[in-house]
């Protein structure tokens, strides 16, 4: 099953890279969401997969009963998801602001900080 996840991650990465390379920065944002998911899945899969046994300790026991899923990657992924959300929110607001300030979402037209040399006087 890990192999299948690996392929899924490959697809996610490929589509997100394609999206990030687009002219429209909104697509970059979409690509960012996808690739964050891919990175989270990489961490999740690296901790190996266990079906149907959440890492919880039943009342009365001192440790989990039977084989449970690897808890550490789950904690890392949780952290990464929240961080990813923070980054996403900022990036989205940035693009939003870029449109209202620069009047475009096309990155080719965003040349204020680095004007073309021929534009210089």
């Amino acid at each position, binding site marked *: 099953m890990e192999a299948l996840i690996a392929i899924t991650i490959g697809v996610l990465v490929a589509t997100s890279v394609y999206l990030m390379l687009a002219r429209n920065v909104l697509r970059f944002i979409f690509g960012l969401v996808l690739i964050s998911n891919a990175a989270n899945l990489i961490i999740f899969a690296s901790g190996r997969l266990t079906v149907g046994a*959440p890492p*919880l300790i039943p009342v009365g026991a001192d440790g989990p009963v039977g084989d449970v899923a690897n808890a550490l990657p789950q904690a890392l992924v*949780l952290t990464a998801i*929240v961080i990813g959300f*923070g980054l996403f*929110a900022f990036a989205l*607001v940035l693009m*939003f602001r870029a449109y*209202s300030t620069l009047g475009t979402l096309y990155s080719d037209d965003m040349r204020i900080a680095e004007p073309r040399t021929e534009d210089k006087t």
Partner: protein
Amino acid sequence: MNSIILRVGTRYLCGLLVLFSLYMLIRGHNEPGGGFIGGLIGSTGFVLFALACGTADARNALKIMPQNIAMGGLGIALLAGIFAAFFGDALFTGQWLFINETPDDKGIPISTVLFFDIGVYLVVFGSILSIVFAMEEEI
């Protein structure tokens, strides 16, 4: 949004969501839940409020600026970590106090870890609301 149903329903739903989020927060140490999930759920309540009734109402209902909530949460989380210093432990060492402890049952636990999780809750809650409110007000 011009939906009476949504607007009326939201008042109740928002309270319910916040209540539910607190439940998720408190039980988080033992069951699925915790500060992140609690904060996220709590914030969705007010996001819904803002969508349905506008941010002005939502801000009024909240009373405190969401950024201050978030920053305050960060402060609480930090203090929960620093608290260990009074006991000579390293940063973020959990300090526990069990009320009504018996040999079989640990009783009601009060811990810095819980305060830390409350800090997390407030941060997530406040942060999401400050972004969403600010965005809403730009539309």
